[in-house]
């Protein structure tokens, strides 16, 4: 029994033929309606043919191995967790890993240029955004496609408060977060009754409404040209050069990230966190258990939005400029992909997902135009092949552990 049979090759050839047909007008023909010329790009056809053939074969091999593994699993009942998961679980590896990681993270701006630190700051921002959205999507199971609206609320509240009232960064930080949380509740109220997919569309609509208002209400938000000259955060009035300000920004973000991880971690195991998970698993059962459904959902929205607001303020301070173009649906999609890719409901997963999705395109600049294409493909592929993400959020399982000298065990043995 070989891995690839002749029939597989035949089928893949058919698939390849289908894709050649499918992509023919859009991939091959390029017209210039002004100069009235047509370019036939036949080489693209060949690329499509070869790529779809190989991809199809690859999927077939994967399916074949999956089937084989399924048989093996049935034979041996113990499940095999991933190596990565194993590595994290073992105490022996855990502490050295954590210590090495924190040393690298802490010394990052000293080791690398401020350009690198700047990229890393962005990645840290997305980790926090991912963790915030993770509360809403991963824990409470409410698919929010308009998360970027809260990010925008944070950014604009700092920009506008600074413009009109000369409010500083440190005062704007909590204000931005709280304003975003307020918007979260505002959005949460009307959608309390909606189920998953309706909720997704309404949140998407909400995100678009916020962006459209920012774009069109020029008297309020200065329209598409945005607001510039937003001051960077100060540190007790110390004068900082641009490089120093960037480094400061990095440590600021790092501190915020640490605080976020701490809070989210504590939240997960709290009464509220368990209520969220219950809500995600089964709303009706959850209500029957006496959990206040409305309140729990609203808190999830508010908390998720709070972090988006905080990061919004930091974003405004970091780039010193905001305009509505930074808050499109694509931004929401990227944050959602971070959560989905890493594994819904898992903190490690979100960190992992953000680092991959933000750093990879930064370091693969030449390929940056393929970034969104890859995003889409990854989202689809993840849902099909590994819907639980790279690192699955592990549910705390309470298991009865008999003590060695307990009388019950003796009976058992």
């Amino acid at each position, binding site marked *: 029994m070989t891995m690839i049979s002749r029939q597989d090759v035949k089928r893949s050839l058919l698939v390849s033929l289908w894709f050649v047909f499918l992509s023919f007008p*859009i991939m091959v023909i390029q017209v210039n309606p002004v100069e009235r010329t047509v370019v036939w790009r036949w080489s693209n056809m060949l690329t499509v043919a070869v790529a779809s053939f190989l991809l199809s074969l690859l999927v077939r091999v994967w399916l074949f191995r999956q089937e084989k593994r399924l048989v093996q699993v049935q034979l041996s009942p113990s499940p095999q967790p991933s190596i990565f998961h194993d590595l994290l679980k073992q105490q022996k590896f855990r502490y050295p890993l954590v210590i090495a990681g924190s040393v690298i993270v802490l010394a990052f701006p000293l080791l690398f240029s401020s350009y690198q630190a700047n990229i890393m700051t962005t990645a840290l921002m997305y980790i926090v955004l991912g963790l915030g959205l993770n509360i809403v999507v991963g824990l409470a199971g409410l698919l929010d496609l308009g998360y970027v609206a809260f990010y925008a609320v944070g950014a604009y509240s700092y920009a506008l408060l600074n413009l009109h009232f000369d409010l500083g960064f440190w005062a704007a930080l909590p204000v931005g977060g709280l304003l975003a949380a307020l918007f979260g509740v505002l959005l949460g109220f009307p959608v309390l009754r*909606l189920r*998953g997919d309706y909720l*997704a569309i309404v949140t998407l609509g909400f995100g678009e409404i916020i962006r*459209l208002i920012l774009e069109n209400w020029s008297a309020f938000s200065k329209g598409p040209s945005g607001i510039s000259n937003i001051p960077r955060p100060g540190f007790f009035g110390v004068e900082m050069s641009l490089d120093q300000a960037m480094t400061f920004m990095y440590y600021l973000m790092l501190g915020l990230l640490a605080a976020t991880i701490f809070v989210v971690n504590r939240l997960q195991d709290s009464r509220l966190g368990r209520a969220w998970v219950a809500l995600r698993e089964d709303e009706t059962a959850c209500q029957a258990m006496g959990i206040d459904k409305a309140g729990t959902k609203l808190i999830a929205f508010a908390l998720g939005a709070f972090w988006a607001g905080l990061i919004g303020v930091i974003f405004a301070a970091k780039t010193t400029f905001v305009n509505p173009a930074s808050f499109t649906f694509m931004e929401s999609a990227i944050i959602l992909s971070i959560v989905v890719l890493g594994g819904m409901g898992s903190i490690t997963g979100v960190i992992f997902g953000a680092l991959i999705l933000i750093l990879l395109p930064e370091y693969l600049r030449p390929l940056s135009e393929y970034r969104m294409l890859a995003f889409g493909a*990854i989202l689809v592929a993840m849902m099909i092949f590994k*819907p639980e993400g790279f690192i699955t959020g592990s549910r705390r399982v309470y298991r009865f552990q008999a003590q060695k000298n307990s009388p019950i065990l003796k009976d058992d043995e």
Partner: protein
Amino acid sequence: MDYFIELFCSGLTRGAIYALIALGYTMVYGIIGLINFAHGEIYMIGAFTAFIVATVLSIYGFPLAAIVVVTGISAAIWSSAYGYTVEKIAYKPLRNAPRLTPLISAIGMSILLQNYVLLAQTSDFLPFPELIPEFAFMEPVAHIIGSSDLVILVTTAISMLLLTLFIKFTRLGKAMRATAQDKTMALLVGINVDRVISATFIVGSLLAAIGGLLIASHIGQINFAIGFIAGIKAFTAAVLGGIGSIPGAVLGSLILGLTESFATGYVSSDYEDVFAFSLLVLILIFKPSGLLGRANIGKV
């Protein structure tokens, strides 16, 4: 009064286009309970295929009638092919997955298709060739309703009629209704549910392609991003009328089209989209099942 009638006509035209797209959403939702997020992209691909074919033919100097026919047919073929393929790749493996999984897959597909067209073609707005001539008999009312508006309304009406006949009387149409009512039962009476689902995607994509072709020649320009906003609005219309209900989708689309048209005419065109989304939010708050939809009562 003329202004009112003009706005009314342009609202109807808008509504007709939304209806063509909304039907795809509503049919798919009725059968597999999935919001096909990539449906707007299918519409965009229909418009793009039409643009490419029409421009190539006009460059090679074909007569207008031939261009219109070939363009229409190829837009329909390729849109259906894309709709079929998207279903096979992104939704079929997830038939029994939790609700969120196929939805995220659909969002991924939407992003993928948008960027595929962006990379393979261009990000610029492209001028769409004029396929609908100005009819002489329309001249007396041309200041109120244009020739292309008339073509859109007539084409949409014919499509709706054909769709109704198809759903009501053909074997496949009956199988679709049966599958929408109860998938397990349909399987038990020997309906090939997978084929019915594929057919639904194909019919929905076909209608979207007609919509894409019509709107592109009406507005006169296209771009890779037109599918997103049109898709969201058509979905709004479908929800407005009650998702899963075919007459509901048409009714919702007309209401949405008229609302937008009057809002643009009497308030401001800047807030056209805000009106559409606000309408969606309001409807979902006060009547989550839509105007003609059945209330979904959860049983434990």
